[in-house]
């Protein structure tokens, strides 16, 4: 893979990201968060394992999203700011390959982070005899949510500054978790135009709640395999769509 331009860019993006102090800070924060769950659980009456699982899953999701946003928004902008993009694009390489490489590199970082945190959470649970592998499908979907957020960050990063991209990406995260409410609003709308607007906005935004099966996993509610597969496919489809959009935007940019 490293022989292909995309692979080489992905590898370099990965190397660049793992040298970033922000990543280590976030990972340290996440591991401290997960470890502290055991201490927090001491203050409760019953439900110790539930609290550890809840905090662990929240840490995996939120820190992963923060990594995706904080590192993702600078991916393209840094190359443009340092003018390295000119050197790169002067080579026989398509702009979409450049962007896909960036995406895959950061996806590898996020995957590594998710793996480390998942291992840490399960180790913490196993040391108290509460190992629970039924959390894995939920963690898998959280990982896909992070991939979607990388795509969003990449899209905004392809035409905007890091600060604005961070704001936009975090806004998409917030809206993505609230987009289901557009359907409720639509039902209360009295005008056709209002209903159409709600419906359009609903379809234009990724519904990140579809990738949220944390409650079911923690309470061991059986989750149909079809639902997991459909949710994963939904997330991956959004990620592909957003990377394609980012590639389209990036290919039209003029760096002169």
């Amino acid at each position, binding site marked *: 893979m490293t022989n292909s331009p995309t692979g080489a860019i992905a590898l370099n993006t990965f190397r660049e990201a793992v040298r970033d102090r922000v990543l280590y800070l976030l990972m340290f924060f996440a591991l401290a968060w997960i470890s502290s769950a055991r201490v*927090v659980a001491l*203050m*409760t*009456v*019953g*439900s110790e394992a*539930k*609290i550890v699982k*809840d*905090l662990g*899953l*929240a840490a995996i*999701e*939120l820190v992963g999203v923060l990594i995706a946003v904080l590192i993702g928004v600078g991916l393209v902008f840094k190359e443009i700011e340092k003018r390295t993009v000119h050197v790169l694009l002067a080579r026989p390489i398509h702009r979409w390959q450049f962007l896909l490489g960036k995406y895959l590199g950061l996806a590898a970082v996020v995957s590594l982070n998710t793996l480390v945190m998942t291992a840490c959470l399960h180790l913490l649970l196993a040391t108290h005899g509460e190992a629970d592998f039924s959390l894995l499908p939920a963690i898998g979907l959280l990982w896909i949510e992070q991939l979607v957020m990388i795509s969003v960050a990449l899209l905004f990063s392809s035409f905007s500054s890091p600060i604005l991209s961070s704001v936009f990406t975090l806004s998409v*995260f*917030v809206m993505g*978790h*609230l987009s289901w*409410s557009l359907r409720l609003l639509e039902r209360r709308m009295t005008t056709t135009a209002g209903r159409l607007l709600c419906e359009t906005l609903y379809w234009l935004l990724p519904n*990140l*709640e579809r990738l*949220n099966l*944390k*409650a079911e996993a*923690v*309470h061991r*509610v059986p989750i149909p395999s079809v639902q997991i597969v459909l949710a994963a496919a939904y997330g991956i489809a959004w990620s592909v769509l957003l990377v394609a959009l980012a590639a389209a935007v990036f290919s039209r940019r003029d760096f002169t």
Partner: protein
Amino acid sequence: MRTLGTRVWGVCLVVAVAMIAVTSAKLDRGESRTDSWDLLYLPNGRYLAVASLGQRQVLADFIYLWAIQYYGHYDISNRYEHLDRIFREVITELDPRYFDPYWIGALIMTTETKDLERALALLDKGFVANPDQWLLPYLAGWECYHARRLDLAAGYFEKAIRVPGAPAVIRRAYAAMYEKKGDRAVSIAAWAAIESDPSVDERGHQIARRHLDSLRVEQDIETLQQAIARYAAKHGANPGSLEALVRDGALPSVPVDSDGRPYGYDRRTGKVAPASTHVLEAR
């Protein structure tokens, strides 16, 4: 000049530290938490769930943890003012399958605020959201029993029995509740079912047998007393013996207790006594 500036800054530093210490101490005294107003604006769990952006379980955990500490804070005299709202409208709305807040909240309600109705409402809500948790109706049953609401208690134990995996001991509570409220037929049927169930351990069988014996004695004595009353009304005197009831057609046969011993009968008073009392009196 530089020395003067350093001194000025030094004085400022000391004054600032002193001010922080004094104001902080005064504010701490003023903040002695004697009311629960800070809870007044805690939104309903349904709204908090929306604001949590997919982290409703963690939010429920933190509010539950806070509640555990808060309700153990004996300085706050009116801390129970929003108890029902915290447990029924916030924590359990955020995470309806969160099992512990239901029974912990209900226990606080019954032991601290003596509010059985709200405790039952919380346990009912918990059972609707967690139909696999027999402990919730079981606990509701005992709370009703302690409040001498035996009808309700029996109903809750019946709900608990129906949950797959519920322990057999709940069937004893169910049978005992009908026994206490005087519904002998249902109680005998329930104890008999326990006695004949091979999955129940020997101790359970013994307990069921003891209750069945006692209930059957009560039933026999009641039957005999009714027959004696009918006989006395017909003949103007009590029968000479219990066998006279059979001869007169008032009874198909004279019952004996589970050990095969006859019941004691006092012709003068017309009263029937259990065989054990009769034997003791004879000695």
